[in-house]
């Protein structure tokens, strides 16, 4: 069975600070990887996804993530956060075999202080 670990549960940053949120997954095969974001009071929406090819993927709002296969990691980064990035961030994985459904991590709550 696949699983996802997000090590940072609550992160507090000042505006313009750099962000890196950790995500590690466990799965014995090829995966698709995703980061979703949930802004306060809003529905989950996709930030970025990795299916294949270039392991550095760029998403919306200046976010990017790097897939490191040897480390089973898919960390999310942003060079300079804004107050509007305050939200909860979820990493998710889908294996290429077996059930075709997302497995999510426990989430990281990001609070950006002005």
């Amino acid at each position: 069975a696949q699983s996802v670990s997000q090590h940072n549960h609550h992160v507090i940053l000042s505006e313009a600070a750099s962000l890196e949120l950790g995500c590690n997954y466990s799965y014995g095969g090829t995966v698709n990887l995703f980061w979703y974001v949930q802004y306060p009071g809003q529905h989950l929406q996709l930030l970025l996804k990795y299916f294949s090819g270039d392991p550095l993927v760029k998403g919306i709002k200046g976010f990017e993530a790097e897939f490191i296969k040897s480390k089973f990691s898919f960390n999310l980064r942003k060079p300079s956060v804004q107050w509007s990035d305050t939200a909860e961030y979820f990493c998710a994985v889908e294996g290429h075999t077996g059930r075709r459904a997302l497995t999510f991590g426990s989430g990281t709550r990001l609070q950006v202080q002005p």
Partner: protein
Amino acid sequence: DVKVTQSSRYLVKRTGEKVFLECVQDMDHENMFWYRQDPGLGLRLIYFSYDVKMKEKGDIPEGYSVSREKKERFSLILESASTNQTSMYLCASSPSGHGGWTEAFFGQGTRLTVV
């Protein structure tokens, strides 16, 4: 824009009641999912469906059932609500694609309180 609509934003039900949570998507997606979201636990998959009249158990199906009579509608049923089912319930849909599917689109969620 893909729209996934959940029938209620907030629900309060009594222990032992039968509860129906409805979800409708308007993009002709094959796949539909029900998750529950709890603080510190993220989203956990309850049930999913790849086609009309079919269903698959997720990671936490106990105490729940589902129904998919039409492609656009996926209902989650709590047969006898209990207080430990107080949670945020999220519905999602996705298209089937080559090598898997592209992304899941989520509804706004239903916050269910069982008293």
